[in-house]
């Protein structure tokens, strides 16, 4: 009977129910969008820097990360590759020989990172090919380079122009080379896009006089969320004095901090949003409670005990809240999917400001299911907590006063 009463009460004042449901739907959509863009941006940031360049775990010669010189390289060891690849959590292992060089055109020069790669394998792990916007992708044995657009623009070089690199090779030999630009690549991360040069690894070993040497093995993982754990396990497996194994969090502590900081900052923002939402939902519940004072008064007067009456009202609000949360998730799903497909690009000064902070001026959205159910549940619980306001009012209700209104 209580259920029946609650159910019918829902449909009795459609306007009021619709207002309440809309408030909840709006709240869910808003918080889903906010959470989605937050997650989307952080995922993208991570992907841009970690996924497209560093990889989630790297193996170096012990001490390399603190002193990134070619002298800290190690021999390419197919046994080591094999033993890494045998691990189930490791999908792919690729070699790199990286070193800092001075890149120059006829008129300009700039410090850059020269990355010797196995072009095909590199693409398998960091999807480098997808970053190519002009020219052709590197091939093994090419005597040519691909450079990032930021660097090319700075040096005022275009496709097929010659790039000169100067640096220090293995054990102090000087390294100098001149390569035609075969392809231009563009990274989402403005920081990375400023100065990267890709060269086939064989050619770079030759350039640096470091035959058969690599500075890093970059690992592609089955599950990127387990980077830290995998890194620790691999570290334990390899001889400590020879190799160091690092997760992206260890390699890029600033990025990890930025991401964690963003998350904390967003929590504050989200709490503020939840408070606004709470006020909105509370308003409709308040309206409902006030409008029904008289009716509540009659029911208590004729002998309905307050616990039962409260239960009816709570049931009503549970119906409304669940309905609102479900509709909210259903409405936000297509919106988020659309924004995921077509991210929002910023333009003008705002875009510049973002780039100056080393961020892409694009709002990416995450379609992670977590976003939907956590936000749906948070708003649902907010609504349910607020549903206890009428219970409180009923508890204090004096039937005489209620019926005078």
């Amino acid at each position, binding site marked *: *009977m209580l259920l029946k*009463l609650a159910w019918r*009460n829902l449909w009795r004042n459609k306007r009021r129910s619709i207002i309440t449901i809309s408030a909840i739907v709006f709240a869910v959509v808003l918080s889903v969008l906010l959470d989605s863009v937050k997650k989307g941006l952080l995922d993208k940031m991570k992907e841009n820097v970690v996924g497209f360049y560093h990889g989630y775990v790297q193996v170096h010669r012990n001490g390399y990360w603190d002193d990134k010189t070619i002298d800290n390289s190690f021999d390419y060891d197919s046994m080591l590759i094999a033993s890494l690849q045998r691990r189930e959590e490791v999908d792919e292992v690729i070699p790199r020989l990286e070193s800092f060089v001075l890149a120059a055109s006829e008129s300009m020069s700039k410090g850059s990172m020269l990355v010797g790669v196995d072009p095909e394998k590199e693409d398998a792990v960091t999807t480098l090919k997808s970053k190519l916007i002009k020219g052709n992708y590197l091939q093994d044995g090419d005597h040519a380079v691909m450079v990032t657009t930021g660097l090319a623009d700075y040096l005022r070089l275009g496709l097929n122009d010659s790039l000169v690199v100067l640096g220090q090779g293995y054990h102090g030999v000087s390294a100098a080379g001149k390569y035609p630009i075969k392809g231009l690549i563009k990274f989402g991360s403005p920081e990375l896009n400023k100065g990267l040069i890709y060269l086939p690894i064989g050619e770079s070993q030759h350039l640096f006089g470091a035959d058969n040497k690599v500075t890093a093995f970059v690992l592609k993982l089955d599950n990127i969320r387990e980077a830290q754990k995998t890194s620790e396990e691999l570290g334990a497996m390899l001889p400590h004095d020879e190799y160091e194994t690092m997760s992206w969090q260890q390699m890029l502590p600033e990025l990890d901090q930025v991401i964690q900081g963003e998350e904390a900052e967003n929590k504050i923002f989200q709490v503020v949003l939840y408070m606004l939402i709470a006020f909105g939902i509370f308003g409709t519940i308040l309206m409902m409670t006030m409008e029904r004072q008289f009716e509540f008064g009659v029911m208590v007067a004729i002998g*309905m*005990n*307050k616990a039962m009456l409260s239960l009816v009202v709570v049931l009503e609000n549970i119906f409304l809240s669940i309905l609102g949360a479900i509709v909210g998730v259903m409405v936000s799903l297509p919106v988020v999917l659309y924004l995921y497909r077509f991210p929002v690009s910023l333009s003008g000064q705002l875009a510049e400001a973002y780039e100056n902070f080393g961020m892409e001026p694009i709002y990416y959205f995450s379609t992670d299911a977590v976003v939907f159910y956590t936000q749906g549940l948070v708003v649902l619980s907010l609504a349910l907590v607020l549903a206890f306001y009428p219970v409180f009012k009923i508890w204090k209700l004096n039937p*005489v006063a209620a*019926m005078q209104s």
Partner: protein
Amino acid sequence: MENDTPVIVTEQLSKIYPGPVPVHAVNDVDLKVMKGEFTALVGPSGSGKTTLLNLIGGLDYPSNGKVWIRGQEISSLSKSALIEYRLNNIGFVFQAYNLIPVLTARENIEFVMLLQKKSKQERDRRVMELLKEVDLVDQQNKRPGQLSGGQQQRVAVARALASKPAFILADEPTANLDSTTAGNLLDTMVRLNHEENMTFIFSTHDQRVIDRAHRVITLVDGSIARDQIVAVPSDHH
């Protein structure tokens, strides 16, 4: 139950509303209502009729004095005990909007018996009996919004009876009705008073309603100014 058992007894009953100028809404009322009486409470607006009925009905606590219903003193009951007490002992009819809007006429009558946890069988039997008595069998599946004001008040009377209370208390039950409809409602109440030997106490302004009462108590400034027996209560039983 014998008709010489008092259903309601009040002793020096007072209600003072505090304020800069305290209002003595009910002032030292000594009242005795016998089983089967059909009593009208009259008096000018503000004379304390509603306040007195609320005290007798256990909706409000007196500032002084006591109320006994069928020999039980109720003003010492806790609020929650009073709710239970009202459910089982007092039938209420208010001026308007008595009914639960989302329940049909039938369900409104059944509602108090559900609260009393009566069996389905008993509920069905009693609801049908009451629908007949208030002449609303045809309207039983309509919701209050689909019923006229007079029909709504008759449902309210049936609901008040459903719990088998000690008496029915009605605060200006005809105030929102035109005189014909008011007459109908009074007919129903009088009939129930006769047939079920139900005790009624109701407040009213309406002279035609007053004329139907067996006993007329006149309140002035919260005190009983006059208490007239105009007819002998029915004693069909």
